[in-house]
């Protein structure tokens, strides 16, 4: 592989023939490079070869969210090529590609929507100029279509591949003209994703599927008591298992958490697992063996009396005196949950002298090879330029693969042997070790004026700190913004708002989980809004809309939702409808849920209607797929058993006790997309936060039972 200079525009005369690199930061399996020329400031890139082959690099790892289509689509749209004409390659954290090779925060499309189109448009303009100069005509008389430049008057044409040499001498325009949205051929159209066929015949390669010459397999025994460390181990019985090669101690670093374990390395993974069962390990559990989730949560409830750190303070909430009968207060609780991507964590690491080579499924190639303060090099003591990554398709992330701990662990093992090692976590490992989504407990208070108007709103979050656990930007005297995400940023017009945060110390590692803290605080806040609506004697939808007099994206979502969900259509007795909406960094979605209280006490979820507000949409069908999936993931977190610890250990082990929703539990889901311009919003996460509150609100409407604690029973 050759890495080509940044900001260069290159011609390649190697085995692939003459090739044209467009945009910046290029790399690929091509020969040596020549003729760099200055280019405009873009990030992603295109390779056009003289034979006509066009390659577009996808810099956002495909974790199931559809970037393998959506990211190249942005470039291809302006380049005037169809995705059928393009080879798409995932990038590998090449330094020349910048630091944004990450899949997180529903950011891929929303942060690249203009920039990547400019990459495609610049390239197209250069190709048109190349054709125009070949014909000796004005570029304005030419146009591009279907990977070909045409001269309008004569009908002459030249394919892109034949323009490569001429185009390589032309400087990329800095301010290319973008297409009018009405002329889009790819963006906004539901198109099949090019990775789908690979995922129906077993040919898509995930990290766990990679095989490297001379590779051995490892399984790691980790302290079952979270926070415990390795004292000593006896591997004599493990080494007698056929296929077991060696046993080594290992360290894994996750934020402030330094974990130790014992790695069994074998010729095949099965032998490594068998050897692991024979290990005799002594742990120092440091008193963590006394930890009980029940006691910890009781402590969180007591912490409600603390004032905490003020997050946002709008208006003058202390100046108002609210009559006691006009005050509503409630306390909400949410649990820890595990990420459980279907592809268990895995990483192949090879260490040769000072060089590290990695093959893995990661959400953050840029952080694996980057030189930033939180990047892998700091954790493994290897210079960033000596780290080489081979990124693959990712079998689910949901936040778990934003972290580098499992890569650190693999490198640590590989440093101790002289062959590549593939470390695979068992499902039990991922269930028992974390990190987990942190629980948040919420104290809420709303106050009505004598005229019945909602005039005060308080939301205090009591929880462990994400920043503290991951060891980034943590300051005990400042609010951890992640833990109060979105709670002061809803569009509702309430004149006096105070939000606050009380930090609880915690030794259990916590992580961002799809839609981060919005997945818990939205439950508290949007259920509480429902309580306020009932207190005001108003329909919950009308109540929300009464707080939205000015135009806003949230108002647009709710008005659409009211219509498409048939909100005003009466339901039979025993059925109920609930609504919730949530706007946060990732985007905005509103949902209604309809439920029926069956005669045996069970709650049946009849229908979910979602309205997701995007500003711009690339692939509507993929957006529907994502939103359906977010709702089903939210269902699991709302009603399935949570992650709890007893005597310091996680009480669940695998899918037989840490349950996930199955097909038979899947409700009817109807997704509507709003793409009416304005701010471009994300897709992957916004479908998640509104579901649990909309469901709980529907259960209240149907049964009168208010669920203030997740997970809750679908049985009343």
């Amino acid at each position, binding site marked *: 592989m050759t890495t080509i200079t940044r900001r260069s525009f290159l011609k390649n005369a190697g085995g692939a023939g003459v090739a044209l690199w467009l945009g910046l930061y290029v790399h690929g399996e091509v020969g040596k490079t020549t003729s760099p020329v200055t280019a405009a400031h873009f990030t992603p890139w295109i390779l056009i070869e003289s034979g006509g082959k066009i390659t577009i690099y996808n810099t956002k790892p495909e974790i*199931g969210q559809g970037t393998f289509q959506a990211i190249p689509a942005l470039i291809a749209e302006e380049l005037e090529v169809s995705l059928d004409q393009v080879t798409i390659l995932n990038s590998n954290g090449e330094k020349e590609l910048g630091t944004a090779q990450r899949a997180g925060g529903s950011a891929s499309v929303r942060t690249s929507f203009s920039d990547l189109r400019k990459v495609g448009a610049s390239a197209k303009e250069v190709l048109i100029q190349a054709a125009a100069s070949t014909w000796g005509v004005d570029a304005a008389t030419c146009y591009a279509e279907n990977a070909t430049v045409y001269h309008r008057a004569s009908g002459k044409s030249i394919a892109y591949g034949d323009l490569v040499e001429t185009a390589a001498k032309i400087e990329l325009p800095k301010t290319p003209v973008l297409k009018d949205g009405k002329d889009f051929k790819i963006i906004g159209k539901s198109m099949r994703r090019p990775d789908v066929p690979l995922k129906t015949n077993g040919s898509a390669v995930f990290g766990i*599927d990679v095989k490297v010459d001379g590779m051995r397999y490892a399984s790691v025994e980790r302290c079952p008591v979270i926070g415990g460390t390795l004292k000593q181990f006896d591997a004599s019985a493990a080494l007698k298992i056929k296929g077991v090669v060696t046993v080594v101690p290992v360290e894994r670093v996750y934020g402030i958490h330094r974990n130790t374990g014992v790695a069994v390395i074998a010729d095949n993974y099965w032998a490594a697992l068998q050897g692991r069962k024979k290990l005799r390990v002594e742990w120092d559990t440091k008193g963590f063996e006394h930890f009980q989730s029940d006691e910890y949560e009781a402590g969180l409830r007591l912490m409600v009396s603390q004032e905490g750190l003020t997050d946002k303070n709008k208006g003058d909430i202390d100046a108002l005196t609210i009559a006691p009968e006009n005050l509503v207060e409630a306390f909400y609780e949410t649990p820890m949950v595990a990420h*459980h991507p279907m592809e268990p964590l895995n990483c192949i690491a090879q260490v040769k002298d000072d060089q590290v080579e990695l093959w893995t499924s990661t959400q953050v190639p840029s952080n694996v090879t980057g030189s930033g303060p939180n990047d892998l090099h700091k954790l493994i003591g290897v210079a960033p330029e000596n780290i080489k990554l081979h990124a693959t398709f990712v079998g689910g992330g949901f936040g778990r693969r934003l972290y580098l701990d499992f890569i650190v662990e693999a490198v640590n093992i590989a440093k101790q042997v002289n062959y590549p090692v593939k470390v695979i976590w068992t499902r039990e490992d991922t269930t028992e070790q974390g990190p987990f989504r942190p629980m948040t407990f919420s104290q809420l208070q709303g106050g009505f004026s004598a005229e019945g108007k909602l005039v005060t709103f308080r939301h205090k979050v009591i929880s462990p700190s994400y920043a503290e656990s991951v060891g980034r930007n943590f300051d005990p005297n400042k609010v951890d913004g992640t833990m109060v995400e979105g709670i002061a940023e809803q569009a509702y017009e309430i004149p006096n708002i105070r939000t606050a945060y009380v930090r609880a110390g915690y030794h259990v590692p916590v992580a961002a989980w799809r839609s981060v803290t919005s997945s818990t605080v939205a439950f508290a806040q949007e259920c509480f809004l429902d309580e306020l609506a009932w207190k005001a004697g108003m329909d919950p939808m009308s109540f929300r809309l009464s707080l939205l007099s000015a135009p806003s994206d949230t108002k647009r979502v709710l008005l659409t939702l009211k219509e498409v969900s048939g909100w005003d259509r009466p339901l039979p007795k025993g059925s109920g409808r609930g609504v919730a909406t949530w706007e946060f960094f990732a985007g905005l979605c509103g949902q209604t849920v309809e439920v029926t209280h069956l005669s045996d006490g069970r709650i049946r979820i009849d229908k979910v209607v979602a309205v997701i507000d995007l500003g711009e949409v690339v692939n509507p069908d993929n957006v529907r797929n994502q939103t359906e999936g977010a709702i089903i993931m939210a269902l699991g977190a709302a009603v399935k058993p949570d992650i709890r610890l007893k005597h310091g250990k996680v009480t669940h082990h695998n899918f037989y006790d840490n349950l*996930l929703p199955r097909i*038979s539990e899947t409700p009817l889901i109807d997704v509507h997309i709003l793409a009416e311009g304005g701010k471009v919003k994300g897709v992957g996460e916004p479908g998640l936060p509104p579901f649990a509150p909309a469901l709980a609100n529907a259960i209240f409407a149907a049964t009168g039972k208010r669920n203030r604690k997740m997970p809750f029973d679908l049985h009343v």
Partner: protein
Amino acid sequence: MIRLTVNQKTHKVDVDPDMPLLWVIRDIIGLTGTKYGCGVAQCGACVVHLNGEAVRSCVTKVSRAANQKIVTIEGLSLHNDHPLQQAWAEIDVPQCGYCQSGQLMSAAVLLKENPQPDDAAIDAAMSGNLCRCGTYPRIRKAIHRAAELQQEAGKKPF
């Protein structure tokens, strides 16, 4: 030596007879379309066909599969054109795709035994296969579509 027939090709493998078929298929034979998800027959990512039946290869000892006919996702069709594979592409079912080999292998047995399954039959047959991305609504839809495609083609059920 254990003799296995995988996708009509014979392999002789020298492994512990207790080794689960999953690891033999993946690590020894090198067919990686069959996935590890849980190791305890709870998620269905490892489903293969053993003499036409859907089995969880993560809990099937390789000795049980000796001299038997095994089909993995790589052998479901020659050209990625099984009605289920066509329907999966048409309806854009997968997200991350990791569980889909197992989903397809379970669905193939369902369609063979019940060429026109209703939602209840689909739910019953597919409840052993987890999908964390939540592609269930599309799996249902795609199985219905595959049943149509199968009928339109006038083919015998696979």
